[in-house]
């Protein structure tokens, strides 16, 4: 399953005090996104023998009986149960880098909790293909470009998933 599901916006990233927000046309080239893995594999449900020995006896006090939420349900046959999706991006960094002067360009992609998904130093910037793994619940990523020149701050862009 691959979806076209991105919306790129140039907005302020509140926590990045030094951010300079660019007002350029979209710099990201959409590469696509989709569910992780290769989809449903062959479904095989054959009668099987019982386990060789009794197991799973609780060595501690028994938990309160809770029943089963799934006992009478059938899962969708094509659902892969993945809670992550693969996000493929092609970043065109030329215009973002053009707004900065430096010999080394740091490119960073992070999520809304500031977890770092990609971090690199480039001497030349161009199209940059990336394949990232993002929780389904994550709504946005942040692309940041900065140089070793301290007074320039960073160019930051929000990527809506």
């Amino acid at each position, binding site marked *: 399953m691959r979806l076209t599901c991105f919306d790129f916006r140039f907005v302020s990233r509140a926590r990045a005090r030094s951010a300079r927000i660019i007002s350029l046309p979209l710099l990201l080239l959409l590469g696509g996104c989709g569910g992780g893995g290769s989809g449903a594999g062959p479904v095989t449900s054959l009668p099987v023998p019982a386990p060789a020995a009794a197991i799973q006896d609780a060595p501690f006090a028994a938990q309160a009986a809770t029943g089963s939420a799934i006992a009478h349900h059938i899962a969708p046959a094509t659902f892969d149960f993945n809670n992550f999706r693969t996000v493929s991006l092609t970043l065109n960094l030329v215009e973002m880098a053009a707004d900065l002067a430096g010999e080394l360009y740091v490119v960073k992609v992070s999520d809304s909790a500031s977890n770092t*998904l990609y971090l*690199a130093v480039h001497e030349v910037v161009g199209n940059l293909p990336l394949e990232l793994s993002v929780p389904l619940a994550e709504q946005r990523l942040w692309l940041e470009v900065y140089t070793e020149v301290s007074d320039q701050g960073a160019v930051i862009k929000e990527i809506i998933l």
Partner: protein
Amino acid sequence: MSIWQQKGALALVACAMGPWAQAEVVSFAFADVIKSNGAGHIDLFKPANKALEISAATLEAFRQDGAGELIFAVDVNEAASGSEKAQTQGVAVESIRLMVTIEGETHSYTGFRSQTRSILQPAGASSRAVYSTLLGNAGSNRVSSDAQSAINNSSFDATLRVPVDRDLSRASAISLTVTLLSTDTALGDPEAFYDYSNGYEMIALVSAADADYLDHLASGHEGAPLVLLADGASAGLSWLYYPSAQSHYVVSYEDLYPQRGDYDFNDLVVAYQVAVGVGENGAVQRIEGKGFLVARGAEYDHQWHLRIPMPAHASGMASLSLYAAGSETPLPGFPVSSAVNGNIDLALFESVRSIFRDGDSTYVNTFVEQSIVKGPRFEFAVALDTPIAREAIGAAPFDPYIYVHDTGYEVHMVGHSPVLPYSNNQASGQTGFRDDQGFPFAILIPDEWQPPLAAVDIGMAYPDFMNFVESSGTVANDWYRQPQTDRVKSIRFREW
């Protein structure tokens, strides 16, 4: 005569040879350290080994040996959290000040250089700048060409060179003040990596030969983010972190496969992350990973694998280390190395039952009354002989699976196939990983998830789980954030 006594004797020899002598210098550690608050005030006349006598002439001999520089070595000793690992750790230096008092007059030196730098934002600042960094690892296998050097069997890592243009042989006091940079860790990496977060960092004065050895060793350089060399060039790889440098995939299994079992999804719970190092040409040169055991609610014994599909021509060398919780010293028998040819299939935990227990119980972190037991952790690194195109390598989250020793079955996530020639899956025709109602035996979840208590069905522990499933993931995709709190085991494993 003990080794320390011998070192003391040599130091005295250096003293006796007078201020202009090119005395032999023997690297020694200081009694003072850089403390956990990031500050160190080092008295250069106070060696860690009290049997040594360090004189002004000794220090002058070091300066001459260093061609006009005093060369210090630092044992980088950081917590293996976030993207830092036992094999790759770092701190940044905010400032140093060497104070030299000669005949009542004090001279101050603030210039210095280290082997590496990075671009970092200090805590409380609004912009980034270039700072010197110190990289290292937790290894303690250093070997000096001088058998009496304090470098031997130590874990000293990075060098710090301070130019000094005065003869020190008449100095009455010399001290070094080191202040590590407090970085804005809220920004993630690289700032989170180069923070100082652990206990003290030892420091030594080293000979030029030992300094050259440490510089060439370059411990911790390979896995560190955003490494710039002293000449300004970029030295490091680009890193893709899966799922990120600060978070983990959590994979959880039902081990009664092919029977469903109680569906509490805590038979084995493992957290892991993988970093893929890419060169300027976009090809993968290195793959690193780390992770730990979170919970285990089973009698059966499990072997946990991480399989990364690779093209057939891929080759390289893999290194694996296991650590007890909280330790940065590998368990006996580790690290182990093995050749890689084609697919990478790492058996990262051979027998979970034997290394992850709660006293006599094989159930760990699955019952209400159990105290939390931190699980052992692993680190691995694969250095590829020839760079491989990223698209030729399997996609994250790769293929984390278990082999159940007791049943002979392997259990993968939906969409994968059995791979072990000795497992029972192929022989019994059990090659898919859904039960007869379409439910999986392994699921992958962000690390905000907490495992259900023993015998509590995951759908009872997480009321939105069935909405998520029945909508094929289109609604309630944050189901794992809303547990019935009395039905899950609260484990703060993200902080491990």
